């Protein structure tokens, strides 16, 4: 076990996979000579050389398309999308090409492609550099979607993504790159995509997070009068129904904490599933704690108001548990047009 920051854990995961498998190549904007804008590939150019570690032009459609072609013919490329918004100009290559090659070749082609993208608000990057955008991948069968929630999960999920035979998008919350923690490395630490992780066990309520909201929940519920079971989904597509359902079967209450806007967020799908499948065990309606349906504002006080931070999450859950009904949000629902 070694203490490392999340960006260092990502570099380490890339290094370990590249050492084991010479078909792993990485590319993206400024990931080689500069070691990555968030230092997530530091030293890899020196270690593995310019053939396998490449800077690209600012050309996401081009290099993501190239990643698809390389993956379909025998490499395991890891492409970095610096900010998730930049995926917009290349989305075709992920959801319409990579995601469909296996299906459209009756299984003869595989696309073991990993795309890493930094996501999320909280650092004052403004509207076009702060979204999470996992919603872009819903309704596009053929892609897997995971999110790191800290150094260990970043390491474990990235290695799993690279080894997976399918296109995997790994979201990396930007606010967590500097988070430092103990990380177990090596083959035994490789995660299983599709498995959620129970972060802490409890009896009174199940609280589910994904990506950045996992540590928000942990901070929010550090000192409480109730016993919460906290689940890190880790993978959203496919999501771990069994772990969530087992937990809700025990607690009878479910809270979902999302960084994305409320409407059509992933919480809606999970809430619908649990409300349908576990109708008889639920003791209260499912609570979704999310950001409002607005573009992410820049001004610091507005951005802080936008995000479900640990203070808001704590008060929402406390009110929910004491009243048994859904609390009002800390933002103004009516004004957001919901």
């Amino acid at each position, binding site marked *: 076990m070694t203490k490392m920051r999340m960006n260092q854990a990502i570099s380490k995961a890339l290094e370990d996979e590249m050492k084991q498998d010479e078909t792993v190549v990485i590319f993206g904007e400024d990931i080689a000579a500069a070691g990555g804008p968030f230092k997530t590939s530091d030293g890899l150019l020196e270690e593995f050389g310019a*053939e396998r570690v490449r800077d690209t032009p600012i050309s996401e459609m081009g290099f993501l*398309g*190239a990643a698809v072609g390389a993956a*379909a013919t025998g490499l395991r490329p890891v492409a970095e999308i610096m900010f998730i918004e930049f995926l917009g100009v290349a989305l075709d290559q992920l959801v319409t090409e990579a995601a469909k090659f296996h299906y459209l070749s009756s299984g*003869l082609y595989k696309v073991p492609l990993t795309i890493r993208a930094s996501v999320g608000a909280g650092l004052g990057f403004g509207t076009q550099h702060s979204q999470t955008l996992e919603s872009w991948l819903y309704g596009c069968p053929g892609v897997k979607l995971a999110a790191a929630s800290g150094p260990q999960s970043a390491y474990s999920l990235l290695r799993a993504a690279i080894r997976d035979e399918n296109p995997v998008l790994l979201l990396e919350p930007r606010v967590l790159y500097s988070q430092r923690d103990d990380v177990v490395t090596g083959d035994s630490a490789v995660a299983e995509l599709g498995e959620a992780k129970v972060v802490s066990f409890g009896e009174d309520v199940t609280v589910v997070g994904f990506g950045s909201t996992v540590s928000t929940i942990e901070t929010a519920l550090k000192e409480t009068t109730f016993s919460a079971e906290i689940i890190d989904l880790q993978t959203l597509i496919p999501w771990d129904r069994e772990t969530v359902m087992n937990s809700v079967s025990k607690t009878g209450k479910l809270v979902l904490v999302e960084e994305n806007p409320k409407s059509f967020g992933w919480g809606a799908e999970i809430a619908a599933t649990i409300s349908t499948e576990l109708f008889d065990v639920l003791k209260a309606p499912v609570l979704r704690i999310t950001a409002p349906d607005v573009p992410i504002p820049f001004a610091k006080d507005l951005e802080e108001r936008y995000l479900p931070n640990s203070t808001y999450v704590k008060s929402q859950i406390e009110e929910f548990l004491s009243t048994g009904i859904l609390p009002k949000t800390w933002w103004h629902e009516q004004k957001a047009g919901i």
Partner: protein
Amino acid sequence: MTRELDRRKEISEDRLFRFERMLEIRLFEDRVQDLFAEGLVHGTTHTCQGQEAVAVGIAASLRPTDTVTCTYRGHGVALALGLTPESLLGEIMGRQIGSVGGVGGSMHLALPSIGLLPTFAIVGAGIPVAAGAALRHQVMKTDDVALAVFGDGSTNIGAFHEGLNLASIWNLPVVFVCENNQYGEYSRIEKTTPIKNICERAVSYGMPGKKFDGQDVDEVVAAVSDAVEVARSGNGPTLLELETYRYAGHSRADTAPYRPEGEFDKWYERDPINTFCERLKGEGTLSESKESEIRKIVDQRIEAAVETVKESPVPEVDSMFNNIYA
């Protein structure tokens, strides 16, 4: 050797087989249009009559271990690369014996053994993907190459420009073949593209760009083979523009009423199959009796394929759940 590879070998080695394969593509496409008209196929299709020399010329210049990306107007390229008429028609008609079991349809063909990546129904999408296959060949230090074939309509989309740019800066072993059939969907090229010669766009990406007659299969083979050799020997990408003509409309529903009077007739005078047939005869390579024999063989082959496919079962419903994830 599978039958697909035998078919591929034939056209690599023998010009008579190139004539035969062009004829096969023509008759196949005509028959597909009939089957649609008869209501025996649902959905849509994009046929390539008039462009047979491009398809066969490309296939004859590549190895099966090279990689090809191709568009939704891909029946000709797929047949030329080796896909059998049964497998292709089976896919177009949504049957189990189709190349991908009937889940793809006319626009989605694929077969790794002949180097055909799943064909692209998104204009331009195959161009950077071919660059990526070339990246694989470069990193793995093989001397295989990738080739992207796409229409003139693909050259105004970002994927074209980004794909060529990336291929050039990384010196990738890839050949970009623009099959200029004069129309992007319903619009003539002059309406959508401000330059006369698409090959000139290569200048922006620091690679050679040349234009050739896409109606002459010998010229296509020579041009593509040269560019493939450049790529194979590590000297980077080339953009080729092959001028050709789409005899049919854009898709099944399009009768091409926008086409100027006389344009089709002018192009038909230089029909790639007729002119190649005359050349082979003039050289003494092809006799009248051999020509009749070839025409008969191809005709029978297509009819046999139609019968086989008509008799073959539709996919099991459960097959839609297969192969979503590897």
